[in-house]
């Protein structure tokens, strides 16, 4: 479709009305209530559901929730996440959660805060938190490693605790047939 160019009258071509209309907006804001914020002295109250920087969390027992399934690495559109799996050595401290990442890096310069990593995580181990202002002096510094991510993420108060339940269930397992109370 071709848009018709409007034919301008003389009064329009003087641009005085346009300039005046612009001034009116400026004047209104100049006189009206202030809406800008004195950042960084003043900070914005982040609304719930805001998608800030993704961090890793621990559960109530202090265990890293991430099991290095690498789904976040797979789904991440800008490829900001890099997970190094633990390799074959058996870590007896991990119990029935046989796996945790040896290294987990997020390149915060690449991250687009899309939240897909949180969405895809089967373990609820990564969350987009409320941090929106990430700064650093070098590119290397902006690649957050696992210690940093966990420290920033803190503890997640998990209601399900599926691995603990599995452990409890296994410990309490009765052989068959269970005895009858009669």
């Amino acid at each position, binding site marked *: 479709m071709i848009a018709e160019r409007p034919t301008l009258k003389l009064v329009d071509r003087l641009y005085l009305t346009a300039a005046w209309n612009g001034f009116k907006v400026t004047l209104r804001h100049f006189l009206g209530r202030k809406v800008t914020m004195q950042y960084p002295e003043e900070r914005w109250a982040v609304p719930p559901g805001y998608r800030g920087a993704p961090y890793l969390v621990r559960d109530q027992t202090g265990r890293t929730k991430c099991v290095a399934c690498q789904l976040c690495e797979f789904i991440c559109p800008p490829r900001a996440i890099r997970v190094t799996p633990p390799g074959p050595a058996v870590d007896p401290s991990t119990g029935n959660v046989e796996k945790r990442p040896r290294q987990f890096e997020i390149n915060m310069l690449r991250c687009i805060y899309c939240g897909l990593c949180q969405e895809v995580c089967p373990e609820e181990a990564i969350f987009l938190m409320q941090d929106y202002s990430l700064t650093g002096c070098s590119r290397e510094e902006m690649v957050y490693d696992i210690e940093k991510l966990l420290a920033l993420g803190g503890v997640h108060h998990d209601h399900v605790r599926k691995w603990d339940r599995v452990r409890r269930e296994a410990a309490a*397992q009765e052989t068959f047939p269970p005895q009858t109370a009669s």
Partner: protein
Amino acid sequence: MKQSQQSNDPLASPPGMISVTVDGRTVLVPRTMPDWQGRQVPTTMLQACELAGVTVPHYCYHPKLPVAGNCRMCLVEYGVPALGPDRKPVRQPDGSLVIKKSPRPAIACATPVSPGMEIYTSTPTVKLMRQSVLEFLLINHPLDCPICDQAGECKLQEYSVEYGRASSRFAETKVHKNKQIDLGPRIMLDQERCILCSRCIRFTRDVVGDDALGIINRGSYSAIAAYPGTTFDNNYTLNTADICPVGALTSKDFRFQMRVWFLKETMSLCASCGTGCNIVIGSRENCIYRFTPRQNDAVNSCWMCDYGRLNYRWIERTDRLTRPGGSKLTSPDWEDAINGIAAALKKAVPGHIAIVASARLTNEELYLVRRLAQFLGAPTDCVPRSGPADNLLLCADRNPNTKGAQLLGIAASPPGVNLPVFARLIRNGTIRSLLVFGEDVTRHGITADDLARLDFLAASDIHTNGTTAVSHYFLPGCAHVEKRGSFTNVHGRIQRFEKAVDPPGLARPELHWLRELVCRVTGQSMGGTVESVFEAMRAEVPAFRNIAWADLGDHGVATHG
């Protein structure tokens, strides 16, 4: 009229064929088909369905293992032509057969087809049966897919998506078994994930002949186990991890290293012995994570040995040659190196030069060596390598291309017989120049002292070695995973392989620089691709006549050698 009726009649099939109908599509299938040992036995419903292009999901069935029939995933409904009181099939007025549907389903993996049989694989009943088998398999299965290495290539996951229920109805406590059981040096077992398909047991008992695994306990508490105190340690244990449809058996080598969906799959060959097992290389970002066998019934069926499978770590060793070098090369520059060698070779006198090539080089590379040798009038030989063979796949000849080297006239007969002769001739001053491609001759009878007598020594290899250390020029080569080409296995089958990862540093595939060297020395021109070298080779070498590169396909062809 009668003619056309007969041609449509399922009971009147050509000899040796049976007409069956799968989901409404009538197909002709052979009356017998090879079983896991290759014996001709009556065709099963599952094979017939496969021929008709219909997939029947299954866990315990494996084409190369005896049938167990225990997973019940392949249950299908079927009907056979109804028989009248005269034991003759009943027909509709239009001549078509009346089909009597069986009231009970049958397992497709073990039930033979009969003429006129109709197989129904997508009825609501069949779908319901698959759904219920999946539900049963999952009730006691730990839901630890995020941890499990099988995730991504797990039949339980795949079929659950395709046929399973959306949610679980199981509210009881699960049966718990042992995890992280050390079955042997290369295999880890997780009993909870096992669905008791018994593939591993059948494989190790019937294919390998090492009856090391069994099922202990009974009922829902059944679990796969090896006898306590024994280790599951034959040369084929890792195949059980391949055929395990779930993550119960995992390779310790690959365990928790990389998720399978990240792996790039490259069609290749195992270069650890002369058998030439077909493999798939799993790599990510220039790093190799695993070798897995690729089915080729003419070579390795579905299997490969642990020795070959784990023989890849050397590729990443730190002593790789990453640039050209040598005592006469001032800068690590390919151009200078090739020019220097070419210049020296042009001065070489026939009869005073010899070439030692490796039977690990590809047919195409060895063909270029052959051109060089013919031009220079140089005698050639290869270094033989051998080790104990077993009765399944591992071959005594540990070079992947000895047969190719023989067909191309590079290897003496038997290979290596010329090496002591070369050593003697070097010592008595007859041989003044030596070219070594891909071997360390100091470990095969030609000492460093002998090499020091030479006027000219050029060598190539993958790692630094005794020969490259004293050579005037050395060139960095590539492992077979870093290049393309073809090998001829001990049975004379020529098979091709593709490049999976990039070579380190300045290393270039031998084919590239050998071709340049041949062109510079001989003054002939020649295409630089594997295909063009192969074309030239087949025009010249009788054993490869009439075999085009494209003919090799995924499974190779037999040479005329």
